[in-house]
């Protein structure tokens, strides 16, 4: 095989494979440091957990040419101002519940998961909850008893009773409120939140 040109030789491609892989891996690791920093809660893109004390909107940002969350004035969740620690504990309970009840094998969160039920990225802002005043109550009722409170829009595709307690429901709602404040580069596009009071 001595007449093999260099570009077809095994040795050349072995070196190529090693070099390319190492190079790409290093780039990914560098980017990971930057990205993890940018998505740690308390950053510009991923808010601190006490964002649940504020009103959260979702509006088209002409400059970025995409929809983006807008953090407004005080709007305490369950009429209570939470410290960052309390807020974290509540959101954490919500996240644990979301995992333990396996919500993501029916729903998507941030667009990832299953396609049997609506995306929950902006569930906190969904017009289906009526208005700001009715929202917390309706969400709690729905999560703790989704069968009696089913809507299904004529499909009869209901969410089953997952045995969510009131406490867990509060956690899930806090988690969903926090989630709706994450900057997702404009996904979902064109989502119009339910009416909320002034800033």
């Amino acid at each position, binding site marked *: 095989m001595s007449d093999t040109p260099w570009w077809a030789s095994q040795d050349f491609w072995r070196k190529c494979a090693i070099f390319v892989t190492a190079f790409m891996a290093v780039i990914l690791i560098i980017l990971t440091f930057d990205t993890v920093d940018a998505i740690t809660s308390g950053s510009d*893109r991923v808010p601190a957990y006490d964002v649940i004390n504020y009103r959260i909107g979702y509006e088209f940002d002409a400059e970025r040419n995409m929809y983006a969350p807008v953090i407004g004035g005080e709007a305490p969740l369950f009429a209570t101002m939470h410290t960052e620690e309390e807020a974290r504990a509540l959101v954490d309970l919500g996240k644990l519940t979301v*995992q333990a009840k*396996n919500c*993501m094998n029916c729903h*998507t969160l941030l667009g990832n998961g299953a396609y049997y039920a609506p995306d929950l990225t902006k569930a906190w802002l969904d*017009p289906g909850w009526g208005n700001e005043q009715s929202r917390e109550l309706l969400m709690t009722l729905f999560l703790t008893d989704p069968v009696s409170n089913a809507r299904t829009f*004529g499909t009869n*595709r209901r969410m089953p009773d997952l045995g969510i307690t009131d406490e867990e429901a509060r956690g899930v709602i806090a988690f969903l409120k926090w989630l709706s404040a994450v900057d997702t580069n404009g996904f979902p*596009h064109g989502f119009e939140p339910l009416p909320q009071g002034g800033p």
Partner: protein
Amino acid sequence: MSTAVLDAPIAAARAAASPALSAGQRLALKYFLAAMVLFLAQTAFGLLAGLQFIYPEFLFGVLDFNVNRMVHLNAMIVWMLYGFIGSIYWLVEDEAGTELVGARLANVNFWILTAAVTVVVIVYLVVQVGSGTRASIWLINEGREYIEAPRWADIGIVVCMGVFFYNVAATFMKGRWSGISGTLVLDLIALAGLYLAGMFYTTNLSVDQYWWWWVVHLWVEATWEVLVGCIMAWGLMKTLGARRSIVTTWLYIEVALMFGSGILGLGHHYFWIGTPEYWLALGGFFSALEPIPLVAMVVHAVYDAGRHGFRSNNHPALAWLIAHAFGNFLGAGVWGFMQTLPQINLYTHGTQWSSSHGHLAFFGAYATIVIAFIYIALQKWRGDVWMSAGLPDGGWKWKWSLGLQCVGVMGMTMAMLIAGYEQAFVERAMGGSTWQAYFEGQTQPWFIQAMYWRMAFGVVMTAGMLILFWDLLTIGRNETRPAKDVHAPDEV
């Protein structure tokens, strides 16, 4: 799976088989058998989940959609991993030119892993969900798609993978190394290491999904691709007598192209999860390059097969290897590419498009090659018998099972693609992805019909799978002709 299910056929086979199988090869057969049982489970639960789209009352409150889907997906991941492990145990001694180092340990390992998988599935089906505590995540399920296995099982899987890795690496160390085995061992390190990225809990969903994709994407679009590249290289040498120097060079080319595009291609999952805007450009660009290595693989397989005049010693295996090359290109390359640019993905993200792509890619890229390998193994097990043209029954079983499965999966894929198109328009683009918009999308005639078509083609696929099992149980049984000799004189 009980011991009896696995032991009976294997004992029967041991008596029947003429050429002595090596320890690694006997172990491989166990992995393959377990893999096929899980394949059956996968389709069964897929059919249940699919039916619930049409009849939401069906098993409501008993076996809900999330449970069926979770079993569908976990059975798939585990059977494919079993298929890979089996294939590697099958080839390791041949490739290393020596005996497996820890055959006994490897056997115990198989039973521990299989017992753990059984317990996990039983808990999924019986306990289903827990309360919002860490204990649920440790004991019941983690609620993260594809890697739902509870933490205790994660740790067990890592230990078992460690034992497997030790066996493979130490066997090569004792015997000889080659380009294929070197690539394989390095790839296995990466594959196992990546699993660790999915083994932690965090409150922050953005961070959670950042690392979750390391496992999912860097498995299927990087390390699994290279792993099957290694298996394919060995398979082409065995079924066609392709030259080692050629398949090894191709393997390096594929590694360079696959890792070159696939590692940063990870960015196509970082468009919308809270991660910075630079991922829109990076992810879009690099993932758009990912089809290139997949084209290279098709060229490689077809070129090799053509060069050897499609004269192989194992027709079903070669046919499935070709199906793998095209399935990988179509399912991953074309169907992935369709939605990989952020401008499009903004609307298709999280719709039936994704599901359409997921089915064709997993089936086309991974189910196919595992099946090909099982045929290679069976041929030797049944006594190194003839499996080329002119099988006693005309080979109708393998031909029909291949045809029905490919038509079934392609039909399901098309149905979901149509549903996904409609969803992208109605739910995402027009409706703004609200609760109501979601159901507007789900109730359009195009969507509803697609769900029926998906079921119909799912049944076709399942029929093909059942014929496959029948063929696997019978092919070569009463064959007396020896396998065709395909090894060119210049074979190394």
